[in-house]
């Protein structure tokens, strides 16, 4: 019976309500709804993000072009911001190759929005409003990455040496083999020992990630430690959203893209064509802004109180 949807029809109605409430929320706040391409000539360069690539033929052009299905609409939305769009949002499909499981589907729905002039904490408070209006969730608590590691593992993630982190990761997760980077160990400890405990009574924002996990966020130094100015939102042990105090420095952005590609090469992964449109857009000037991506399927999982993504989408990859 795999022609049938994996979710109940009630889940489809709930999704429609969430989307309608989302449009209403942003309309009231005069945030402009936009659309950006799913297919692009460049894509995310992150070491652990894989894009689905496609060969695209165009008339009057020799040979196929390699294009990528977007892992998020981030780059294109920042180009709109640089062009003077003002506050914008969209709900769109994003694609992540190789990701499938009880909480992952290679194609998923993302709500992404940007607020020029907002600090990270102003954006967090808007995310809290959104959660309250759309999902009737409580106002989230705030915990730092460091506090979470101290509380659940009694270890300082910023100061512990690599060997200590590796031993702890090994002991806590039974991981085999070596070749784990510092960030791999932190990710393991986070996913295996901390995540499931986050946001169980009410949602929680985790802030101040290690600078090595900044991706497209600004970095600032606090007490001699470089910290990424970003947050993740957790509810019921589920990671729901990822927000940045956005990097607007074109040179630093170009440097990070190149560093990512270097790391990819070392790992035997294909290099990603750098998005020069984005670099040019940043060069032309982007005012300070904050942005967030929120997984709509995961949000619905929290509202429906289910642990499986198959319960909130009609045709997960197995039935697509």
């Amino acid at each position: 019976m795999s022609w049938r949807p994996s979710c109940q029809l009630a889940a489809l109605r709930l999704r429609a309500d969430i989307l309608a409430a989302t449009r209403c929320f942003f309309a009231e706040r005069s945030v402009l709804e936009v659309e950006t391409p799913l297919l692009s000539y460049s894509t995310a360069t992150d070491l652990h993000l894989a894009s689905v690539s496609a060969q695209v033929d165009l008339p009057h052009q020799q040979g196929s072009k390699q294009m990528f299905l977007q892992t998020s609409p981030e780059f294109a939305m920042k180009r709109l911001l640089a062009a003077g769009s003002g506050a914008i949002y969209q709900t769109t499909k994003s694609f992540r190759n190789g990701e499938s499981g009880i909480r992952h589907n290679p194609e998923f729905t993302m709500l992404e929005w940007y607020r020029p002039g907002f600090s990270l904490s102003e954006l967090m408070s808007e995310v809290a409003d959104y959660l309250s209006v759309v999902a009737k969730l409580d106002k989230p608590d705030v915990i730092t990455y460091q506090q979470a590691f101290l509380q659940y593992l009694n270890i300082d993630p910023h100061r512990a040496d690599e060997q200590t982190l590796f031993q702890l990761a090994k002991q806590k997760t039974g991981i085999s083999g070596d070749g784990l980077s510092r960030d791999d160990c932190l990710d393991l400890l986070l996913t295996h020992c901390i995540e499931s405990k986050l946001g169980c009574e009410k949602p929680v924002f985790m802030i101040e990630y290690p600078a090595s996990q900044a991706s497209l966020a600004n970095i600032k130094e606090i007490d001699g430690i470089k910290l990424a100015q970003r947050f993740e939102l957790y509810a019921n042990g589920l990671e729901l959203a990822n927000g940045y105090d956005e990097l607007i420095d074109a040179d630093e952005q170009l440097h990070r893209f190149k560093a990512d590609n270097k790391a990819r090469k070392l790992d035997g992964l294909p290099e990603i064509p750098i998005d020069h449109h984005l670099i040019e857009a940043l060069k032309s000037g982007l005012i300070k802004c904050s942005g967030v991506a929120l997984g709509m399927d995961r949000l619905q999982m929290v509202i429906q109180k289910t642990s499986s993504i198959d319960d909130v989408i009609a045709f997960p990859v197995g039935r697509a």
Partner: protein
Amino acid sequence: MANYSTNEFKSGVKVMLEGDPCAMLEVEFVKPGKGQAFSRVKLRNLRTGRVWERTFKSGESLEGADVIELDMEYLYSDGEFWHFMLTDGSFEQYGADETAVGDCKLWLKEQVVYAVTLYNGAPLSVTPPNFVDLEVVETDPGLKGDTAQGGTKPATLSTGAVVNVPLFVNIGEVLKLDTRTGEYVSRAKG
């Protein structure tokens, strides 16, 4: 044996881990947003029966284990080996040693069919059916009219297993037992 890489992991796959054959029970894909992906796996060690939790980095691989599970009828014990016979008509026999038989020893009855796990062609473990019928060989005399009280007493079965039974049960009666919990279920029918 073939190797299994993390993207071939799924429940039922049998692999070698730390020298022991293991069967995967649950496989979960774990990945923080932009971090490294892992496979979190629950495995049953087929030698000890213990459940292990292990995590593997995406792309790692494990050697497959030469393990098969077959239905076999229990024949007899010669004191050192417990002998089983395939039910597929081949009449092929296998001798399982004490470690392979393990706790199943308490539930072994001739002509009953058991699931025997073979590793490299030799019995590694024996799993009893969920329910077996066994005769009581020793217990205190039964008490009439006490069926509603719900009291119990120990009874020794033909295999040597000792289980708690209702007070009305007598020597020579055949009982239905749940092998997973080691508990009395009812008197055997027919």
